[in-house]
């Protein structure tokens, strides 16, 4: 059994070199951002000692920029800080709502979108929200950096495409236009403090007449990874996103879902509720895009 160790590199290069040298020493590493998943898992599921590499001291992981074409959200920014940024909230209300759903006020003070993504849980709330806004992961690699679409980042339950010598620096998101909006809803048995039983994100663009010209619908907690539901998107495009269209999208989500029965919900429950969430989130996104 090795030892626990802690490192807080202050640059991308230093962080990469810590990962590299630990790997060379045969030491296991673990990237630490908000720690709200990592520390819990380290104490219960996988207690094996490791070196914790805290990426919060790195400038790039703390960067938040809202450009004319692109938004960048550093991987170490806590959800609470994102929620306090009114401009960001106005541009990506669904994503920020999804981030805001992760745990309590206390958890919000630590948890990051990047961490939620890297934890790669099927139930991660921000993942469907990121997928629908076509977010791209910016990954620090020994060779420099590489980019991967969020939809391709998560490869399985708790698994993603990061190498042991890589880490997530942040997320790039195309800046939504005026007639575009997103929304995310999840279902939990309480009002707070739960893991999603099902989740649905919807991003829409409407033309001036209110007809949907493009749509992305993604669902979470109903399959090993988040699903982008093309059939649901297709059901919305070309419509006014009325009840019929939303019901069709909902049905497509329910059909696409392939959940499991566990302590948080049954297969039948999740399939039905993910449709309900799609319908409700779609309505919210429509109202936002048309206002």
């Amino acid at each position: 059994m090795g030892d626990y160790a802690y490192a807080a590199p202050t640059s991308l290069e230093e962080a990469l070199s810590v990962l590299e040298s630990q790997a060379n020493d045969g030491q296991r590493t673990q990237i630490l951002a908000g720690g709200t998943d990592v520390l819990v898992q380290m104490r219960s599921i996988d207690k094996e000692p490791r070196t914790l590499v805290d990426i919060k001291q790195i400038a790039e992981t703390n960067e938040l920029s809202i450009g004319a074409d692109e938004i960048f959200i550093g991987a170490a920014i806590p959800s609470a800080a994102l929620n306090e940024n009114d401009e960001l909230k106005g541009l990506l209300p669904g994503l920020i709502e999804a981030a805001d759903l992760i745990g309590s006020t206390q958890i919000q003070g630590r948890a990051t979108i990047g961490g939620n993504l890297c934890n790669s849980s099927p139930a991660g709330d921000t993942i469907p929200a990121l997928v629908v806004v076509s977010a791209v992961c910016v990954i620090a690699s020994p060779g420099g950096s590489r980019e991967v679409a969020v939809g391709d980042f998560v490869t399985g339950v708790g698994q993603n495409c990061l190498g042991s010598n890589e880490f997530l620096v942040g997320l790039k998101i195309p800046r939504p236009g005026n007639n575009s909006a997103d929304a995310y809803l999840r279902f939990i048995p309480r009002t707070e403090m739960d893991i999603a039983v099902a989740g649905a994100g919807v991003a829409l663009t409407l033309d001036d007449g209110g007809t949907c010209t493009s749509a992305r619908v993604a669902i979470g907690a109903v399959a090993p990874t988040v699903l982008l539901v093309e059939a649901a998107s297709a059901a919305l495009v070309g419509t006014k996103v009325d009840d019929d269209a939303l019901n069709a999208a909902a049905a497509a989500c329910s059909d696409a879902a392939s959940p499991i029965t566990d302590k948080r919900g049954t297969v039948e429950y999740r399939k039905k509720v993910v449709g309900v969430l799609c319908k409700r989130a779609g309505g919210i996104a429509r109202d936002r895009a048309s206002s």
Partner: protein
Amino acid sequence: MAEAHDLKVIGTRPVRPDGVEKVTGRANFGADLYLPGMIHGKVLRSPYAHARIKSVDVSGALAMEGVLAAVSRSDFPEETDDLGQNVIARDKVLYHGHAVAAVAASTPLLAEQALDAIKVDYDVLEPVLSIDQAIADGATLVNEQMHTNGDASQPASNIAAITKFERGDAEKGFAEADVVVEGEFRVPMAHQGYIEPHACTATINEEGKITVWCSTQGHFDVRTQTAAILGTSISKIKVIASEIGGGFGGKLSVYLEPLAVKLSELSNRPVRMVMNREEVFRATGPTSATWCKAKVGAKKDGTITAATAWLSYEAGAFPGAPVGPGCMSVLAPYDLENFSIEGLDVLVNKPKVAAYRAPGAPQAMHAMECVIDDLARELGMDPIDLRLKNAADEGTQAPYGPKFPAIGLKACLEAAKAHPNYTAPVPEGCGRGVACGFWFNIGMQSSAEVLIREDGTVIINEGSPDIGGSRASMCLMAAETLGIPYDRINAHVADTESTGYCNMTGGSRTTFATGMAVVQACEDIIAQCKERAAMTWDIDADQVDWDDGQAVPKPGVNADVDPLSLADIAKTWGRTGGPILGRASVNAQGAGAGFSVNWTDLAVDRETGKVDVKAYTAIQDAGRAIHPAYVEGQMQGGAAQGLGWALNEEYIYDDNGVMENAGFLDYRVPVASDLPMIDTQIVEVPNPTHPYGVRGVGETPITAPLAATSNAVRDALGFRVSELPMSPPRLLEAIDSQEG
């Protein structure tokens, strides 16, 4: 008994004496004691729900640097009772999480790592995980020596006991009924969910003198239990009750203390043991999962002619489910001639159940109050009117035997009928559900010493751990009795060597019984003060009155003297005989039964099955509220726990008997945003046996909410869901099957 209008202090809402300590973080709870040289203990727990232990070898742990002691069953006396076998497994592990061994090491992490070095050889057995499994023919036996009601002439069984209560002729009563309704209900295993995990620190000195500091509802019981499990004398053990971070019945039994003492003995160090939340769920005592059947028959005018109940309760791994009180409470609110009740205490491979707030009553009353609600619907009667028609009152023979003295059920029902929250229409889209609650309340043994300082201020020493503001109640009753201001009195929960014997804080007995001891000890002080004044004034003690905190000559006594206050008497006590201290001890009898009426308005999202509780009102007879704010707090807290149990809380087990939701993330107690304000109304029908009319108030509040919530969901949906919790998946499935 003092009349309400004569009371000066009782019924006011002062700040509790221990308040500042608790809002500033100064108060010391179970895990807050640090002793020089202290090391840390951890428990190895069974990975199986049912297995025979072939061997336990702790030598690997002991070989690790920094590990100072390790214990297993061989370190404890072989002859032990169920509690001892629960603290450390003997021949078999009986539930997942059952303690098998423990170690103490220099750091908590090292202790945890050392657990991996303990070798246990198990012979895994099939677990028994439900009442249905346990009572089926040919069921695996949790305890091969267990015979129902101890009748060894019958084959061994998982049914530890069958209890029956009956009166009149239920069959005849049903035959006379115009309407008969019945139902079958299931309530899941639930945990008290106190926020402070079990924690203790134990130390033993060179002459074998043991000191235990722990979070407990009864430190005298910790002394008794620890001595028994260790096979030592109680005279060797001193127990200091820390502040306690919630208990609700779950901190009446020891889990860690005997292990910590043994580890301290072997390591010659103070040993601290603190459970983590997962251990609290897996290995302390939750309350029983139940399967209950209830049936009532009534005339068209609402007169109930008969009722029956069949109540089966999971006991966990050892006998002792609270099915007896379940049987005794199930029909307590009603005046009935014909009924029969049968209760089963059933062993399963789950943790040994512990008391949980009105133990046994919520599950049984849920079944019966749901059926009563259905009866009201069948009869087209208001549910409160139906209950009023049949309500028990003073002189009614309770189903469990005796006749009720003065009780407040009718007063609560009438208060409910007149309450603006009840007369207001049910909000659009909501359902409303009503239920009655009941708990016996108990007395038992308490002691109190009242010490006077030389400035006339007062210290109360008593032995009831203060779990919810009882120090304030003691000071209020003492202030009222002595006639001095509340802020001149402080109350102190003394350790087992600093006050007289005291039973636990539980059974809603503290304000009643310990309060009675405090009042009597104050009366002892008054008697002594009258004597001292008489000495000072050269008159007889029986010529002195105690009036408004001062000794005064009785009316008509010819003495030209100034009144003497407690402070005056204290100032000169050296010349009248020395310091003044009062004491009293009681085995208090006649705790008054507590009744309540609750209702809630809630909405159900028919697309997701989620319940939104919009309003909740609790009315309860407190006898007399000593500190009304803490009485209301009990009513509100019990309502919240009941709502949680009704809607989301449950132990979820896999097929191997492993709890899948052993944490606050998935064992879903209500959070602040789940609840509305909880309106309360205290009814006061004084209990004649207490000097100030107190009944217990702590437990009754959880007995009505399960049924009130079920009945509201029934009202909202138009059909009944008879299994708790009414979690979203369960409700949606029920909605879909009704609509489908």
